[in-house]
């Protein structure tokens, strides 16, 4: 049994108590508490997050994936522009990717207009951003490793040998 198991449990249930984690992993409670504190301090555990289905709550949110073409800066590559983009509140994710475009970013807003305005007025106006290609998200099927489709029904018999 490795300490890694603690992270496996926490990753699927950030709410899990030290006692519960100790039961599930077979580790000592004190050891679990100590290890979690160490990971919180060192940044292995970044934060505890709740996955909210905002659609189900009734919030309308609009997401777009924007492919951004950037003219890299001598000596700094894409870092300056990427960091500048990442600071906007509307930006959920920023990744440098291979292929025809350079950065793939995720933009979130309350409406299509809000996202479109952000892309047109903020994102594409940033120095060294030479082009943007916006894809509005239509439907999520799997998010963060989690299937969002209805679970398959349990077809097992109630009692079997």
């Amino acid at each position: 049994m490795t300490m890694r198991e603690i992270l496996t449990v926490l990753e699927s249930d950030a709410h899990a108590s030290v006692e519960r984690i100790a039961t599930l992993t077979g580790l000592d409670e004190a050891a679990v508490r100590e290890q979690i504190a160490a990971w919180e301090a060192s940044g292995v555990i970044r934060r505890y997050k709740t996955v909210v289905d905002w659609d189900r709550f009734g919030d309308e949110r609009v997401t777009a994936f924007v492919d951004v073409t950037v003219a890299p800066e001598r000596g700094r590559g894409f870092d300056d522009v990427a960091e500048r983009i990442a600071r906007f509140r509307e930006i959920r994710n920023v990744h440098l990717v291979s292929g025809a475009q350079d950065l793939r970013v995720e933009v979130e807003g309350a409406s299509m207009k809000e996202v479109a305005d952000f892309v047109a007025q903020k994102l594409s106006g940033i120095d060294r951003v030479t082009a943007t290609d916006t894809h509005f998200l239509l439907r999520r099927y799997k998010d963060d490793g989690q299937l969002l489709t209805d679970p398959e029904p349990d077809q097992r018999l109630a009692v079997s040998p």
Partner: protein
Amino acid sequence: MPPLKPFSEIVRAVPPSGIRKFFDLAQGMQGVISLGVGEPDFPTPWSAREAAIHALEHGATTYTSNSGLLALREAVCTDLADRYGVRYRAEDECLITSGVSEGLDLTLRALLNPGDEVIVPEPCYVAYAPCVAFAGGTPVPVALDPAEAYRLDPVRIGAAVTERTKAVLFGSPSNPTGSAQSASDLAAMAALAVSHDLWLLSDEIYDRLTYHGTHTPASAAPGAWERTVLLGGFSKSYAMTGWRVGYVCAPEPLAQLMHRIHQYTMLCAPHMSQVAALEAMRTAQDDVEEMVADYDRRRRLFAKGLDELGLTCPEPGGAFYVFPSIRSTGMTSQEFAEGLLEQEKVAVVPGDVFGPSGDGHVRCSYATALPQLEQALERIARFIA
């Protein structure tokens, strides 16, 4: 209606499975948490399902060779050699069957003459004794000791050997007890088998579901290989119960006799299932490891919960069952299981269906999501309060 000649005496003498009654009781009820299920709650890994769909679209709807797809037999034999160091030739010592159930039937029919005795340590899987009887043999039950974690005790088993004894039939890890036999106990069984010229019929369907180190196959014990039949499959490890595909590995002379029965009866395991099993072996190892890790967490939580309720059990080392004693409640297994189902809607299987020494115990399967296991523990607590 004119009179009919009587049916088979052998079959009529075998009682129906005691599990059936609980199935009937539980099936009609709403809101039941079932700990009575003998199969994984995970669906088959998608890569295997997708491969089977593709195979169906491309014509894998025919018979395969009687022995099964050579690629699958090779994958099975390579895996057994790499994982456990036991070697079988894919060509003539390995046969793909419709699950361990068929493999067991073939083994017993190829091995037994009328009146041959097969020692069946119990509590054990419900089909062992009936399959021995169907093959014309006589099952000889030997009770294992919960205080010894149901280990195969060569003294108890040796005491049941007669000149008619042909084999010992056991499962490790075990349904229903969850016990996994140690290498040293298996070595002692092998020594017993050598000294009395017995076969070891080893049901290893739960081989990947072990929680204290790697599984030990019976055929790995010194002197055991040439008198051991290894029965394995995909149902539990790869969550493929409904596909009906397993394998049997045995020394060539016995394997050929099994092959003879199989070619006249089953012909071959389902083609598309064999394709799915091969794909599972190739690409679903991470899925297996995740499932095993998940079972292990549930096992800890559930065994601890039962222990806190005073329903003690030896720590289960494999499969996905715990087999706690319910003697502290003063009830029989049947009373406990019926009462728990009626009052608290939790389905468990009374231990006596797995053999007379299983009375005073119930089988609980933890192949159920954690929140349901926790709720089941609360209900059991209320029931015995």
